[in-house]
Every structure is written in C-alpha cells, then in structure tokens.
C-alpha cells in the first residue's frame, strides 16, 4: 500500500563520510504517505506502534516531500463534530501542512537548530523533513533530537574550552616562570661575578697573611731563643737561629707588616661587600613571596638598581637618580621589582654607544607614585611602539629576549591598578612611566 521509497541515507547523493556532525545521524526512517491517502488511513497509520515516536508524518509525491500531517491536526479533525465522517474519505493532501520545514541531510546541526528556531511553533506539533542533496525525501527529524545534539555539542565544547583554558593558563604560568628564570639567570651570573671578585682577593689576602704569620712566628721564636741565650756560650742551635732571623727579617719587616695591614683592610672591605651582595639577594628572595605589602617605591628602585649595577658598570652607563618623596604603595614588592628590573635591563640593552645615561626619577603626583625610566639608547621605531606590550613581541635577536618581559610588566602594573606608558624617539631614547596608586594618607587630626 505504501509505494513511496523507503527512507535511507543512500537515497539522493550520499554525503561525504568524514563530515562533522550534521543531520544524517538524526534521521528517522518514517514511512512516507502518498498525498492521495485518505485521512482515515493516515489516522490509523499514526496510531501504528512503529509511528508512536513521530509528531507528524511526511507526505511525499514521486519522491519529493510535499507536506506533513501532524498528530495534532489529525486529532483536531477527528475531535470535530462529525469530523471523521466529513473529512475521513478526503485525501490527506487537502488537510496537510503545505509548508513543512524541509532540511537537507548535510546541513550542520547548528544551522539546523537555527532554522528550527525560526520556524518553530508552540507547542511543537511537527517533526521536520530531511531530504537528500537532490531534494528527494530521506526521512524525518525530531526537533528534540536536534536540541539534544546541540546541547551535547555545547557541553563537549565547554569541556574542551575548559581544558584549553587550563592548558593556556598553565603554559602562561610556565612562560612567566621562564621569563623570570631567564632574568634570574642573568642576575645570578652577575652576582656570581660580583661575589667572586671580592672573594678572589679576600682568599688570596688571607692565604698570604697566613703565610706571613707562619714566618713571623718562626722569626719571633728564633729571636726569643737568641735572647734567652744571651751571655751563654755559642752553640750550633744559636747559629741556626741567627741565620733564620737574618733570612726572615727582610720578609717580616715594618713595611711588610704595614702592607699586610692594608691587605687586611681590603679583606674586611671585601667581606663587607660580599655581605652586602648576599643581603641584596636575601632581600630579593624575601620580596619574592609575592604577597601584598606596603612598600616604598624608592626602596624598590634602589634595590633594582643595585641588582643591575654590574651591568651598568660593565657598560659604563651613568645613572641619574632623582628620588622624590613618596607615599607608600600597596603592592607585591617582588612583582614591582620585576617590572623595574625589566625596564632597567631594557634601557641598558637599548644603549649601544659609549655615552650611556639612564635617568630614574620617582615622584608623587595626584595620589599616584610615578617611576620614570629614561635612556638615551637607540629608541623604538614608531611601528613597533604600539606592540611592545604584546606577548612575544621582540626586536631582540633569538635567545636574547623572550618577548614577554614588557607583557608581564604590563600585566603586573595593571593588576596593581596602575598604568604603564612609553614614549620613544629612534636615535634619541625611550622613556617608560609606571604609575601606581598610592595608599591614601590618613588626614592627621589637628
């Protein structure tokens, strides 16, 4: 009785297999109804156990969908007084919905969902018809299935997004860490040199002093024995002692002792210097606990300057420091230190000539603390200036910069509710200004 072709995905042109989620998976093989089927027969068909899951049945003429008839519409007909008698023998084509929603089998789910949303009625009374690419009938689709598929995809995508986000976050952390390690590596290299220099002469001086004290002990011992032997007959031992005294005296004379004193002064100086360097390191590591703290930016600037001191000295760069009186800021001192170190080392690297000069000015202005770092280096080209805070943007050679330093500095300053600005002129120099909100001073009671 049903002469329509069975719905199958083989009808029409088969969609490519690798296609991502489209309607194909959702197609339900509903037996199509010919347009001339009497309404009564259609009523029976819709009650058929095979069709209980459908809201509507497709009506197909010569393989092409022409309409749908919904369970809802049939119920309306049969519930009318004499509905069955009046309409039962009529062809279903007279009662069908002539403008059903028809979607092609290769339509992506999202697009299908949009088409359904535009077409939907309340309550949902119909399924939609699915055709092949040639427009021929393939089957029907349930609105709810599409919604479920969309929901599934959204959930899946959400999970993926979450994962991607977690991955990004951890790689960002790693990058920040590696930038930190890179600058730490540079710093350590400098500090090692700075410490080994005084350690070099301290050790040498101590070794020499030890040798001299050995000589002095011998000399004094021999002299004591000679004095004790005064007036006694000459012995071989006495001759040995006299010879030893003669040999040792030029090495342990007043000048030599004076020289030793000078060496020991140097030694003390060196030890103090090592102590100071280690102290700087300790400050730096304590600051690295990254908690929020009241801090004076001048102190942070001095600490950062001390840490890059070896670079400045090596390049013979003059630092002009203008320290204004500053209110405290609430900050993670280690992070602000990182920003300052970054600005200073950039300034140093920008200077390629012999008359290097870096101006570091701090001042308070309108409830903010400003730090200005200005170099007379090569400057930044205008087309680069807008990008210098972008992550991975670098004009330095491979291996010389991660391109993250300023991006991190920018992020840190913003997290502190501050601003970082740059102005530059190629061949003249570059100026960075960092502004941090100051802690509002409590007005003193009169």
């Amino acid at each position, binding site marked *: 009785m049903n002469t329509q072709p069975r719905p199958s995905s083989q009808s029409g042109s088969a969609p490519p297999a690798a296609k991502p989620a489209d309607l194909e998976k959702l197609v339900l093989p509903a037996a199509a109804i010919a347009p001339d089927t009497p309404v009564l027969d259609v009523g029976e068909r819709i009650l058929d156990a095979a069709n209980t899951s459908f809201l509507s049945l497709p009506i197909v003429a010569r393989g092409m969908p022409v309409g749908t008839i919904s369970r809802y519409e049939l119920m309306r007909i049969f519930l009318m007084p004499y509905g069955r008698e009046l309409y039962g023998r009529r062809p279903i084509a007279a009662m069908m919905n002539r403008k059903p929603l028809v979607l092609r089998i290769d339509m992506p789910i999202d697009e299908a969902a949009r088409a359904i949303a535009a077409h939907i009625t309340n309550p949902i009374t119909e399924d939609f018809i699915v055709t092949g690419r040639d427009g021929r009938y393939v089957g029907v689709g349930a609105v709810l299935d599409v919604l479920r598929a969309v929901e599934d995809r959204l959930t899946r995508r959400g999970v993926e997004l979450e994962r991607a986000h977690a991955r990004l976050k951890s790689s960002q952390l790693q990058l920040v860490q590696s930038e930190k390690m890179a600058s730490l590596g540079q710093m350590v*290299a*400098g500090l*090692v*040199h*700075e*410490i*080994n*220099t*005084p*350690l*070099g*002469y*301290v*050790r*040498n*001086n101590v*070794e*020499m002093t030890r040798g001299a004290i050995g000589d002095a002990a011998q000399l004094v011992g021999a002299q004591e024995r000679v004095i004790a032997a005064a007036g006694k007959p000459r012995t071989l031992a006495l001759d040995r002692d006299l010879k030893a005294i003669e040999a040792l005296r030029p090495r342990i004379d007043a000048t030599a002792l004076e*020289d030793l004193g*000078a*060496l020991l002064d*140097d030694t003390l*100086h*060196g030890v103090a210097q090592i102590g100071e360097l280690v102290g700087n390191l300790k400050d730096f590591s304590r600051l690295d606990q990254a908690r929020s703290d009241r801090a004076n930016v001048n102190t942070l600037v001095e600490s950062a300057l001390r840490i890059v001191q*070896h670079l400045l*000295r*090596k*390049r*013979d760069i003059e630092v002009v420091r203008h320290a204004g009186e500053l209110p405290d800021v609430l900050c993670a001192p280690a992070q602000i230190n990182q920003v300052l170190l970054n600005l200073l080392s950039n300034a140093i690297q920008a200077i390629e000539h012999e008359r290097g000069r870096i101006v570091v000015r701090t001042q308070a202005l309108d409830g903010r603390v400003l730090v200005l770092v200005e170099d007379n280096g090569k400057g930044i080209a205008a087309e680069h200036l807008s990008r210098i805070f972008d992550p991975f943007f670098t004009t330095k050679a491979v291996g010389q910069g991660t391109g993250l330093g300023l991006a991190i500095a920018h992020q840190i300053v913003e997290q502190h509710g501050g601003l970082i600005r740059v102005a530059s002129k190629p061949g003249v120099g570059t100026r960075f200004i960092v502004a941090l909100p100051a802690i509002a001073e409590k007005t003193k009671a009169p």
Partner: protein
Amino acid sequence: MSVDLPTVLFVDDEERILRSLRMLFRGRCEVLATTSGNEAIEWTRRRRVHVVVSDQRMPGVSGVDVLRAVARHSPATMRILLTGYADLDAVTGSVNDGEIFRFVEKPWNAQHLIGIVDQAAQIAVRDFAAPAIPARAAVVEPAAARVLVLDDDGAIAAQVRELLPHAITIRHARTIEAALDVLAEEDVAVMVAQLTSAGGDVAVALKELKRLQPALLAIVVSPLRDSRVIIGLINEGQIFRFLLQPPVKELLRRGLIAALERHAELRTTAQLQSRHIVEPARDTNASLSGRLAHYWRRLRDGRLVRGARAG
C-alpha cells in the same frame, strides 16, 4: 730588583685584586698592573711582557678583547684569563680568540696561580730569548698534512672535506678506537672531534692525547653549552678551537686553516710545543688510559720503524 725577573701584567677593574696579586707575586716577577684593558694592550706593544693575566668582565674592553690584541701584537706573551664568572661567550672567546694558556676562576688558590704564572713565564722567557717564533706565514705542505675527524655520523667529516683543499688527506673515525688506530699509523696534524657528552671518553682522550702529542691540534665541535667542560678542555687539553654544533662553516674553515698553519710551526720549531703544555687531567678513565698507553707505544714503535726505514 733583579733584572732577570719575568714581567707579568695583571688586568682587573678591581684595584684590590691588583693589590692582592701584586703582593702575591712580589719578588717572583716584575709586576705590572692596570685597571684599563686598553692600557694593558698599549703596554704589551711597547715593552716585553711575558705573561698577561686578565679579568674578563671589565667596563669598556673585555678580557678576551685584551688577550686577542695581545696575541696579535705580542704572540710570545703567554695569556691567562682570571675571572669570577665563566659565561659561555667568554670561555669560547678565550679559546678561539685569546688562545689562552689557562682559564683560572676566582677565587683562586694562591699556590696554584703562582705555579701557572711561573710555568707560563718560563716558557715566555725562553721564547722571547730565542727568536723562535717564526713569521705567521708558515707555508703548509698540503700533501703532508692530515686531518682526522672523529664523529659518529660522518656529517662533520663531510663538511671538513668540503672546506679543505683536496691535497689534504682527511681520515674519518666513528669511535675513539678507530681514531687511535689512525693516530698510531699516520701523522695527523689536526683532529676535529665531536663531543656529545660531558663525562664521555672523548674529552678524556683529547686531554691525554694532547699530553702525549703536543703538536696535535684539536678542534672540538659540540652541542654542549657547558662552560666547565670547555674550561677543562682548555686547561687540561689545550684545545685549539671550540665550536658549537652545528659549526658555522666559515668558523670551521678558518679554524682548520689556522690549525694547519700552527701545526706546521710547531713541527718546525719544536720548542713552541711547550706553549701547549697541559695541566694534569682531573677525571681519568683507567681503561681508556690503558688503551691510550697502548696507542702511544704503537706510535713510538711506528716512529722508530719509520725512522729506521727513512735512515
């Protein structure tokens, strides 16, 4: 003061280091000291300086710059780097440009430093006294020169072959044993060695070979960016060049040419070989030492045989 004392020049930007060193070497040599690299270079131009001991990190001119200039103006002067931090650039620069005798790290051991400076001074005193240092334009006899390349995949050997004239014989060895066989049988001028591991046999072998055969010049090609390894190769192996792998072609070419020229000098003027005296190696490998001793015996016997044939 005695006129016979050798002159040693110390360069360091820290006055206190200079004061300390001056004191340490008082009576042992005539000490010159300056905080300026440029001044140091000037002095070596104007007067006979037997040994230069320079710091690396200094404002203006670096230690490697100083030693490079000294090597050019006063090749008989022995060069020593004394530095507080060994960054890779400084270390490779000190080998390749400074051609230094020793790389000493701060803080130094007084007796050790005295020993090194004394040894260097003796060598320089002798070289200055005898007009031994020939003009650098020593002609290489290409047919006689042999280059041995030790690398496991042959890539470096291929590169060396491409860079050198055909007249020069190039031998390739994949293992140390194969390299020793070649060395025992043939008269190798330059050895290009790939160094892939810091603690491996290649480094030990290079040091031992230099001790046994000072005229053999080594060019080390390595991916290792380890200053400590290179310092060991300088002090205990007197390597001629250190190139990061993959080697820059031009640097390898120049290194090979310079090594062949230097080898010719060392062959014609045997006394120059003492400029390449090595420190005793710190890490040795008993089994390798055994094999090297065996090689050495074969080499000696072979020479005797060759000598007999020639005579």
